[in-house]
């Protein structure tokens, strides 16, 4: 869709919340949690619109009707009117009851408690990437979170450093990731898809680049994903570039920060055991292709301001990096 049309569609979209190509929109709920909020917001929106219409109309009428007619009779000095004033104290209060009651209902309905059998996912915010752990499945991954469609999911959110906030609008509201605290949200996604989100609490230099995606998979593909993730890393074929890459990896600083199952134990950066199976790297900012991987390894901070991953070239050479890229891509 050409960009100019977005503007035209945005207005009715905001009002009706119907579908469009806004992958991070709050108006296109794709889970029970998001739908509850959407419904609540729609109600508040109509009340607000009504108040807006009435009050602004009164204001407009007042200023148009009572513009000074030259040399007209002086206005009557009214100082107040008790009944009127009681009226316009009560009316908003009554309207607010209609806002407050569904609000409280929704607060309790979306308090973050999923049924016991729900899929458990732990989300840990890091400067500036997301780590996902599936304690029951023994999976650790980064950047992209997979969940099955139609099944309840319980997300527990915390942080390893500063405060972040986990948000995938299509699936529901955000919760802050705070070290030493665990926040919980619960949802049941209702359609398969690839949903964008990002960190929404300012967390330093690359806050803007702390994006994320949630992949809602059909049941079978979710099971397949779980299976690959649970397996060890693919062994690179002998003599291949990937095997050379593994050697480079094992003798470089990489091992200090990254885990590859059976190869290295680092925990400062994302777990790379299955990095080849991700669509994006660096927390959803770049596509996972050879070019981006290579320049990322060469000099991450120049791609992502402030990135904790230091510049690797030098000591690495272009050949080393090409081998590393081949290796990482083989880690499906």
């Amino acid at each position, binding site marked *: 869709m050409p*960009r*100019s049309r*977005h503007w035209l569609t*945005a207005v009715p979209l*905001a009002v009706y919340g119907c579908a469009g190509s*806004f*992958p*991070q*929109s*709050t*108006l296109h709920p794709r889970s029970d949690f*998001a739908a509850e909020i959407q419904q*609540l*917001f729609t109600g*508040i929106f109509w009340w*607000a619109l009504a*108040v*807006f219409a009435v*009050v602004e109309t009164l*204001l407009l009428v007042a200023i148009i009707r*009572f513009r*000074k007619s030259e040399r007209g009779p*002086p*206005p*009557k*000095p*009214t100082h*107040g009117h008790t009944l*009127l004033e009681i009226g316009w104290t009560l009316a*908003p*209060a009554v309207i*607010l009851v209609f*806002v*407050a009651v569904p*609000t*409280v209902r929704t*607060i*309790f309905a979306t308090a973050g408690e999923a049924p016991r059998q729900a899929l458990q996912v732990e989300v840990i915010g890091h400067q500036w990437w997301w780590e996902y752990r599936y304690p029951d499945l023994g999976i650790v991954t980064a950047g992209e979170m997979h969940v099955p469609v139609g099944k309840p999911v319980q997300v527990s959110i915390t942080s390893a450093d*500063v*405060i972040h*906030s986990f948000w995938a*609008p299509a699936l529901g*509201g*955000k*919760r802050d990731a*705070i*070290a*030493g*605290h665990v926040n919980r949200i619960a949802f049941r996604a209702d359609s398969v898809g690839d949903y964008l989100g*990002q960190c*929404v*609490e*300012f967390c*330093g*230099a690359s*806050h*803007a*680049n702390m994006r994320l995606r949630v992949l809602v998979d059909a049941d079978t593909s979710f099971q397949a994903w779980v299976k690959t993730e649970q397996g060890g890393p693919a062994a690179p074929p002998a003599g291949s570039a990937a095997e050379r890459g593994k050697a480079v990896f094992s003798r470089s600083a990489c091992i200090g920060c990254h885990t590859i199952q059976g190869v290295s134990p680092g925990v400062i950066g994302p777990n790379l055991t299955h990095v080849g199976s991700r669509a994006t790297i660096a927390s959803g900012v770049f596509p996972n292709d050879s070019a981006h991987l290579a320049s990322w390894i060469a000099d991450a901070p120049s791609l992502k*301001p*402030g990135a904790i991953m230091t510049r690797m070239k030098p000591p690495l050479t272009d050949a080393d990096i090409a081998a590393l890229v081949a290796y990482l891509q083989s880690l499906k």
Partner: protein
Amino acid sequence: MSHVAASAAPAAFAFPATPRPRGLKSWVTTTDHKRIGLLYFWTAFCFFLLGGLEALVIRLQLAQPDGHLVSAATYNQLFTMHGTTMIFLALMPLSASFFNYIVPLQIGARDVAFPRLNAFSYWVFLLGGLFLNASWLVGPLFHAGSLSVAPDAGWFGYANLTERQFSPGPNIDFWVLGLQILGISSLAAGFNFIVTILNMRAPGMKMMRLPTFSWMTLVTQFLVITAFPVITVALVFLMFDRFFGAHFYVVQAGATPILWQHLFWLFGHPEVYILILPAMGIVSEVLPTFARKPLFGYTVVVYSGVLIGFMGWGVWSHHMFAVGLGPIGDSVFAATTMLIAVPTGVKIFNWIATLWGGAIRGTTALHFAVGFIAMFIIGGLSGVSHASPPADLQQTDTYYVVAHIHYVLFGGTVQGLFAGIYYWWPKMTGRLLDERLGKLHFWLTFIGMNLTFFPMHLIGLLGMPRRIYTYGPELGVGALNLTSTIGALLIGVSVLVFIGNLLRTRKRGAIAPNDPWGGATLEWSIPSPPPVYNFSVIPTVENRLPRWKTELHEPITDPPAVPPAPIHVPGGSWWPLVAALGLPVLALAPLTHTLWLAFLGAAILLFGVYRWAFEPFEM
């Protein structure tokens, strides 16, 4: 209903005993509330331009997806300094310029209760503002590898990002120390104006005869003196963490960074009412004057202002709905927050009722006052949608909030202040601002602000977070952002028109009579600008609209142009400035890790205070 015809003769302030002082020294040492008011105005206006310029760079960066006008680091400094500057260095002191200039005139006083403390407040504000903004230029002194080391953690500087571990540079030091300095200025002014309003009223000026603007000033000052200590404590903790290795916000030590959020918003929410109440006071003065009708429901407007002040203390956690306070806490804070809509609504309805049945003169001041009401409603209603915690979980930290804050702060406070400027400028300078340029200014502002801030509602709902220096084209918000940027440039043009108006009318503007508008309050009974002693004879007030004829009473007679007896006017003083100078020097000590500066700063401060305390200064 009529008003007193403006007395034709311009001021006869040439009373021999009290010549109008001249020269730089007279400004630096001034203790005259009117001059301090003007100093506040010009200083704050410059900071407003600076904050606006920062906003324009922000807007240019965001005009398109993947913008690269400025770096991430610079952008983070820009929005932090934009918010901090606008709130602490532009809007609060612009309100202060009216507290200073107008309140003593409205209550029939010769000056504020403590003129030298008043000068001290101003100098501390100026020095604090310069200290904070020095961070833009002094990077090399800190070997920072960049020119600017401006604060970069947002105007609410959430711990633990602000800890030394995550923000090692001097950036946050500037912020912490600068805010501490500014807090002292606000507190000093707070005590001063509380006493002035309670204690310096002209005979007969009972509290319920106090003009609404003075009332709102009083409420504001109570909020200032109660809210600022809380942020002071929060900042002291942060200072100890950063400079002395304490652990107030360090998770590993068992502390929680959420403590900061509670302390900050306990201050921060009252702070937003500190920003809006003076503007509400201005609107409550402007509407009656130009509708030629008393404020509808004066008592209710006053009490609702007081109520807003009180209720403002019970809602702070609505900034923390995503923190996870539990459903009960969320429900309670949702309810208290929504309740604030009631007293605020009451004000809106009373203002409309004031206009209703009036004989409205469409001056620029009235335009801005009506613009205030129209825009504040939008900001208030988006506020109510934030007040619903589940809804806010989708809104918080997105541009939807940015839309809310600018509708209340720009649509509300800034427009209210502009109304005040057009209304009181003739009193303050003796020249009327040009009405044609004024209307142009208004319409450009009005259109510009809606073009800038309305799309932000949609941008936010479509998922764009705030405080990001860049966003991807896939979000689909590029066109909306471009619209917003164009709007911001339009606001820029409107500000230029305003500056043009200020400069043009300095020499060429129509001479203002005592009372160009037919106002009901005392400031209009004296020359424009008023003589140093304000009132040749302190008036005795018998009702709430002293200068109007109503069904109940006749207008009072204005004080004579020439004082019947000599009036003693206190001279100036150097010591407030000297004492104020001690504070930035003190602040330099931790900033540069230089102990002797601490002693020097304390010595200057003490020296200033002692000389001040023992200098003969009679009012």
